[in-house]
């Protein structure tokens, strides 16, 4: 199955007018908490070892239940956590070598805000970043890294951005899309300022467990609701960033919405633009249509695809997006989003749009050197 898949993937890349692909969302799967121990200072190494690693592993599992079909491709054994080295080997085999990937943006969605103890959260974020740099970015030159931060503790987050944000392989700070307050709130502004000062993109990424209910109407019953409902989180966060004037305050800020889906974007912007016209006196610093901020500052990753299965409706959706520079190709590896690699990219894109999707938009957005 894998061999057949690889052939199909090569064929697909061959169809595109460019040989190059940038995969804007792949994951460094944390095999176990033990993988981080050597990056922890003595105090926390002892704490984690003695107090039990199960607790410290939860952030990497809570948003992606290990057995859920979406969490791992069918080819990956859900019972084997493997090692960091085997994870990197699989990433090379399934993504980097099978497509003509010039760069892949890798993140470890180990969102430490789940820890009620912010000091351990900070220590674990630092360890996870050092692990990512040493065991993924250093051995694999095609990878570019996303660092994680204790987002609910902005002072700590800024310290971490300043500590590792200058590493040449780091291109992005990821924040979990779920938070206790929307990210446009003034308490978070230093995070965006620090990221922009280091030339980093801020990526909002599916996940996070801040303790508050994931909807405005309390706790849903099912994981499938959370999977669908994350699109609403991205909408609330994007609305907050624009309304609070984060882009006005940090004019060179770039924000990536990762695993957000994107079919919701046109309807969201129509409503937001319309309401801004009627209510803009409440937020005078928002001096343009909200959609203008999105076009200037925001990109979205392609997978998980949440568009229509009817071709005609998809063509209408492309028109409604009104831009072929919003989406960036992603596989979301090793999460399972499609069976057949030929389905990784929705049909009907022009050659020009496909080139932008696969390569050009991400290269410019993440300021990557030409392949």
């Amino acid at each position: 199955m894998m061999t057949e898949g690889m052939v199909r993937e090569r064929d697909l890349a061959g169809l595109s007018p460019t040989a190059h692909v940038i995969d804007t969302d792949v994951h460094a799967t944390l095999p176990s908490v033990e993988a981080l121990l050597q990056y922890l200072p003595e105090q926390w190494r002892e704490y984690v070892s003695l107090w039990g690693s199960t607790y410290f592993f939860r952030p990497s599992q809570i948003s992606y239940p290990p057995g859920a079909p979406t969490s791992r491709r069918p080819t990956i054994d859900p019972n084997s956590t493997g090692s960091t080295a085997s994870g990197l080997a699989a990433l090379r085999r399934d993504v980097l070598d099978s497509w003509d990937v010039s760069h892949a943006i890798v993140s470890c969605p180990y969102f430490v805000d789940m820890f009620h103890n912010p000091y351990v959260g900070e220590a674990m974020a630092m360890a996870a970043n050092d692990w990512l740099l040493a065991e993924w970015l250093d051995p694999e030159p095609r990878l570019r890294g996303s660092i994680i931060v204790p987002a609910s503790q902005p002072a700590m987050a800024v310290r971490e951005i300043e500590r590792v944000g200058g590493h040449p392989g780091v291109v992005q700070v990821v924040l979990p899309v779920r938070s206790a307050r929307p990210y446009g709130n003034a308490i978070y502004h230093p995070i965006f300022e620090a990221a922009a000062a280091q030339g980093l993109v801020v990526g909002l990424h599916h996940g996070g467990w801040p303790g508050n209910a994931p909807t405005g109407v309390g706790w849903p019953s099912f994981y499938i609701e959370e999977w669908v409902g994350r699109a609403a989180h991205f909408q609330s966060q994007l609305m907050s960033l624009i309304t609070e004037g984060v882009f006005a305050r940090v004019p060179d800020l770039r924000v990536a919405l990762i695993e957000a889906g994107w079919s919701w974007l046109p309807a969201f912007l129509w409503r937001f633009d319309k309401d801004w016209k009627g209510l803009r006196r409440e937020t005078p610093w928002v001096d343009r249509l909200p959609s203008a901020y999105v076009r200037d500052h925001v990109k979205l990753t392609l997978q998980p695809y949440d568009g229509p299965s009817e071709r005609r409706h998809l063509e209408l959706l492309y028109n409604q997006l009104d831009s072929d520079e919003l989406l960036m190709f992603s596989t979301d590896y090793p999460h399972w989003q499609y069976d057949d690699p030929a389905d990784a990219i929705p049909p009907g894109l022009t050659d020009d749009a496909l080139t932008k999707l696969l390569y050009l938009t991400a290269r410019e957005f993440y300021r990557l050197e030409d392949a």
Partner: protein
Amino acid sequence: MDIQAIPRLNKESSRHTKLVDCDVHVAPVAADSIAAYLPQRWRHHNARFYRTYQGDFYPRRSEYGERFDAWPPSGLRPGADLDFLRKQHLDAWGIDIAVITPITHPSNQANLEFSAALARAMNEWQLEVWLEREPRLRGSILVPTEDPEAAATEIERWAHDHRFVQIYLYAGTLEPIGRRRYWKLFEAAESNRLPVAMHFGAAGPHAPTGAGFPSFYLEDHAGASTMFQDQVTSLAFEGVFVAFPNLDFVLIEGGFAWLAPLMWRLDAAWRKLGGEVPHVDRPPSELLREHLWYTTQPMEEPPNPQHFSAILEQLGGDERLMFASDYPHWDFDAPDSALPTSVTPESRRRIMGANACRLYGLELCTDSKGNG
């Protein structure tokens, strides 16, 4: 602008078009008007302890979010003066039927017994002050949403009176609306053939988003569709429409352009994760297309009118969309300009009245041949 003097709808050329407004807000003439309908025990409670625990605590652009020109000469608040409502809204636009939606919801009370008493009082008030005095009005049965058994009792109390055409909830419930605890309410709705309508607004105390409280009314207002998205997701995956195959559900003042994308997203999730919800035995979009209805205001407005036609096509047609003005609120949509000019006359006929006639069983739309 003296809008009541300029009825812009040409009734001659559109005499076959019935105009049904699915969201007209009415208010009590005075703070204690509703209290007069409460039994003594709750009248005392109301006088001493009344407060709400609503989470959507934002100033609304104007006092109560009203249109500045909707304050009646009588000095009453907008929506409280029936004569002025007739003159400025029903007569001026030639509205055949208006479904009234009271401006507060009894579920804004944490005390469930009081919530139930308040619901009953507001329904009695609706009947006496509005429905009995103006035949063009239809009522919405208010229920104590968070006590579904009491809600079912309230539904039974009014179901025989055909001037009440729906059961009325606010979108901001304590738990996602598809959860089992609300099924008694759906059972009563279905057995009485009454649609359940959900209107913008937080009755309960939650933050309006899954990411906590935003800072601005703009976010509360424009972001309301996220709450509706979460509620529709709950209805789909809890299997409400599998369990209640004859239940109609109406979304009021939540927008609707997000619905087709949500249905794609629900289907995408169901294809992968449907094993978690085996009781949902069909693609969720199929169920939603059969059970959901939605109203126009506040309409998403694509700058390109063709994109609006595309929304209707993506939704699978124009047979579930119903005109609503949201009178007398600031974001009111006028009947003559609510829809883009690109909408065809036949489509306009459906959206402006025929669809509501079908849903609510209104007789005015039935022609001599019995066609709706």
